[in-house]
């Protein structure tokens, strides 16, 4: 699929890409928050939360990779 024949005008594609960018940024901030909160809990002796938080971060990362792939499909160069 080339950018010209994916059924989107350049404007629509721009909006889609902006949306993806926004979501990826949001998820990245969530990951950063998760890391700082886990670190804080770990230093405070709360060891229970570390693994669930790691799995949550992994899920966020998978989501971000998926969004990145969509972005690649919208602009396959």
């Amino acid at each position: 699929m080339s950018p010209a024949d994916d059924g989107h005008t350049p404007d629509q594609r721009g909006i889609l890409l902006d949306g993806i960018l926004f979501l990826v940024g949001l998820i990245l901030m969530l990951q950063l928050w998760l890391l700082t909160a886990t670190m804080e809990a770990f230093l405070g002796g709360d060891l229970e939360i570390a693994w669930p938080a790691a799995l949550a971060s992994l899920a966020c990362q998978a989501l971000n990779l998926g969004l990145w792939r969509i972005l690649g499909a919208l602009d396959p160069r």
Partner: protein
Amino acid sequence: MQDHPAEFPPDYASQDPAALPRIRFPDGRSEPDQPGWRHAFPIDWARDQVVSRRDFTRLMVLTGLAFTVAQFGVGLASLRAGRARPEPKALARVEEIPVGETVRLHYPGPRDPILLTHLSTGAFVAYGQLCTHLQCPVVPRAELGRLECPCHNGWFDMAEGRPMAGPPRRPLTRIQLEIRDGVIHATGVEERTA
């Protein structure tokens, strides 16, 4: 990227305007009205933006990957910390520390400084000496009933080790104590969030 015009500069006058490629230029003017340098260095602005957004997104995804790796690092560290149970250790005899005095000892390892204090209430308390802000050693201020961190003017109360002022947010690490036969023993380390 738009192809270069076959001839340079392009002869727009002889072309049908409707057949010209529709490019939006930053100054809002049409292609024939653009200055000559733009024909020499043609940039497809829409695509140029797409590329930078893609690169930026890749950077964010890679940063997220670093966060995830760090997150698993914390997970592994928590497994190790969960297994480590410090051995009990005799710290001092009760009569060696008068009321209001603080002594500096080490527990659980020789590189873990702690402060053991005999409070005016008669009780003994011990805390890790490293400030929970950025690990500077705290010093006792017996006259104020507090511990001070001189690095950034952080304060903890002596009775509980809780932060009172300055940047620290977490209480000092508490050393669990037991008194047996007139000897103060450290039996464990308690990290605290609040």
